[in-house]
């Protein structure tokens, strides 16, 4: 059991080693390169703020996903829910683009959460009432929302004074997340993430809903036998998950971005799946995992600047984390044995 929470660390160490090997093959000094990747980005206050900035949406989304994954619902479309949340929240922000008022930001945030929730309800309803596969539906909806966003920022919502750039107007200051420190980009959205962590811990471990999620995740047959309202539960976990992703989307557009454009998320919704599993679907584990994975985003940017390698190495690292995590899990639960096979011993 202790090992169960230990394997994420093994996976991280292996990822760093693997990264070193890749850098070596690419002709870099691996120690130097890794330093650029993992140490340099967070060696100053600005870097730390950027780390938290990137960890915030990852953490929020992963918290939401943990509700789905724990109850055996495979919501892969958080990226779509994030985008749709951002569209709805952004739409509200644009309504108030020339107004100020303390009430605007809460409205925008709520609208974003509701947007994510509604978008997550689509795969949930299709699953509960039409028996569709939520993995496919939620995944495909990602592209729907991205194309919708594309259409909006190019077409009806594009900034009339924006020289046809594919982006909307800037939101008014009242639609922006307050910054925590002057000169740093870290904003109040981090409190949303922390609140989500606390709340999810409470819901998962202290409430009847959490108990139902736990039982359903372990055995659907038992959940049915106990008479849990299976359909309602699926809808609820998808709604929670969608709301979290929607909040993350709103956090991005009202935080660092300040308007809607095509690239509001560097695939946070997909990366958060890795975060959720690296954090063992545990609220506090997810905080830790989101920081680690956020670092791979930052490292990739630094590496691009200092080593002239594409920032997509970040995805390589994220992929490696997931790969090593799954591999360590596999090796944890199974024993490896090297057998000398005579020919004809097995026929495949």
């Amino acid at each position, binding site marked *: 059991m202790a090992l169960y929470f230990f394997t994420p660390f093994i996976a991280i160490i292996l990822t760093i080693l693997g990264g070193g090997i890749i850098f070596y093959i690419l002709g870099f000094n691996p120690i130097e390169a890794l330093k650029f990747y993992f140490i340099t980005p967070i060696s100053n206050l600005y870097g730390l703020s950027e780390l938290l900035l990137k960890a915030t949406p990852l953490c929020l989304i992963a918290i939401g996903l943990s509700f789905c994954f724990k109850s055996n619902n495979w919501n892969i479309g958080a990226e779509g829910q994030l985008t749709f949340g951002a569209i709805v929240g952004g739409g509200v922000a644009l309504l108030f683009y020339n107004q100020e008022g303390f009430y605007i930001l809460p409205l925008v945030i709520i609208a974003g959460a509701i947007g994510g929730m509604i978008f997550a309800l689509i795969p949930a309803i299709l699953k509960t009432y039409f028996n569709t596969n939520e993995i496919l539906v939620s995944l495909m909806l990602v592209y729907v929302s991205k194309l919708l966003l594309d259409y909006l920022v190019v077409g009806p919502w594009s900034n009339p004074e924006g020289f046809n750039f594919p982006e909307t107007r800037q939101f008014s200051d009242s639609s922006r997340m307050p910054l925590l420190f002057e000169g740093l980009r870290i904003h109040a959205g981090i409190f949303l993430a922390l609140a989500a962590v606390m709340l999810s811990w409470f819901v998962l471990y202290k*409430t*009847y809903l959490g108990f139902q999620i*736990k*039982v359903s995740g372990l*055995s659907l047959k038992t959940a049915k036998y*106990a*008479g849990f309202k299976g359909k309602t539960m699926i809808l609820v976990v998808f709604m929670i998950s969608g709301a979290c992703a929607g909040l993350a989307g709103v956090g991005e557009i009202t935080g660092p971005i300040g308007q809607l454009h095509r690239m509001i998320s560097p695939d946070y919704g997909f990366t958060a799946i890795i975060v959720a599993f690296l954090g063992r679907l545990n609220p506090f584990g997810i905080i830790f995992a989101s920081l680690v994975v956020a670092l791979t985003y930052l490292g990739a940017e630094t590496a691009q600047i200092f080593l002239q390698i594409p920032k997509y190495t970040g995805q390589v690292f994220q992929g490696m984390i997931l790969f090593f995590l799954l591999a360590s899990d596999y090796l944890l639960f199974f024993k490896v044995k090297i057998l000398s096979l005579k020919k004809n011993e097995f026929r495949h």
Partner: protein
Amino acid sequence: MATDLRISNISKIYPGCIANDNVSLQFKSGKIYALLGENGAGKSTLVKILSGVVSPDNGEVFLNEKNLKLSSPLDAKKNKIGMVFQHFNLFETLSVFENLSIDATEDNKSLRVRINEILKKYNFSIDLDVPVLNLSAGQKQKVEIIRCLLRSPKVLIMDEPTSVLTEQETEELFISLKKFCDEGILIIYITHKLKEVLSLCDEVAVMRKGKVVSVSQTQNERVETLANKMVGQKLAKIKKKINISKNKDEIFKVKHLNFYSDDPFETNLVNLNFSVKKGECLGIAGISGNGQNELFQILSGEIITPNTSIIFRNKEIAKLNPKQRREYLMAFSPEDRISQAAVPELKIYENVALNNFKSSNFFEKGLVNEKKIKEHSKKILSDFSVNTDNVELKSQFLSGGNLQKLILGRELITAPELLICYNPTWGLDVGAINYIHETLIKINDQEKSTILISTDTEELLKLSDRIAVIYKGKLSKIMPSEEVTPEKLGVLMGGGSVD
């Protein structure tokens, strides 16, 4: 050539339990050996050691005086030790031949020839090219046996082979086993069914708490003597006094129960009608796979069927889910203890919380009331003599018998008016079976009703006031149990008719 299998001083210790304590046994070909013991007595561990699944902490296995190193199932196969497990390892959607060719070492042509030789020699009639899912349990078992025979085994270990078979299939199996034995294959037969030991085996080793407590010739044993050795104490005989009174109220009434399914693994139910009186036990007999699963799930509310009427205590409950039915004081004990009635990964008290009533207050305003659940769990553990008082223990550490006591306790502590149970003693040892039978009788004595769906005819005859048989989704007429004999039940269970 004669085979001689010797187990010498085998020990295997799991955390908190000694599964095998210095076990030594000797087997010689030409005889059928029974390995008898309650659940948790250490039979399975010993078998797993012999088949290379588990390595012993201590001790050795000798086959014809050669010290075997069994560190994987492959080693067991190489050393000609064959094993037929209780649960079949077959791919349901592949054909029989494809299943057999998966781990074969020769080409398909010669394999087919050899399989046909085996079919002919032992008079097995199996079509090699039909998908396994179309076979009966007995035929599936034969496929497993053929798989072993293809490797010309010296030792054949059968783990609880009759738990899924009909009477007739059991007889066929016994004939085959005797044939194998005559051909010099050493047979080790693992079971907890005493009568089978007496009718099939020559020698019997009884295990209790990880130790071999007796090795004897079966001709010197009787059911009672074996049972006492197995349990380690004298068992009280229980007998129910039949409890039919025509005037009693019908507490539960099912009308027009129909169920149609597209799933080839499910059985359709055709117009079932029956009722249960207050204080009565209605037994439903049948060979497994004749619709019992579906019937149980419909009675418990896991499956809702249209146009069915289920009246319970004068209320229509056919549309209610299991939780709502529990509020009306029904209780359910499904067949599958490990993945349905309880979750092994959950702690005892969490499993107790699965049976959640409004009045139990386990969850107040949506919050978990851990203290209340734990108190309630403690009471169940002591009232139903479950072998632990630690409610924080994960249920996977309970033996089958203790888990079933926990489940029954959980269902009964709320004093339900009707308990529906399905194979409540499946796979349990004599001691636990006795306890559960006593409990079920006690419920009827307290004027509460039970529906007992079971594949164990002995159990049904012992506990039921009235019995019906389910065959291919249809229910026979309901008979008072004193008019029912095992033979009559056997005929009905096989699809025949009486009078």
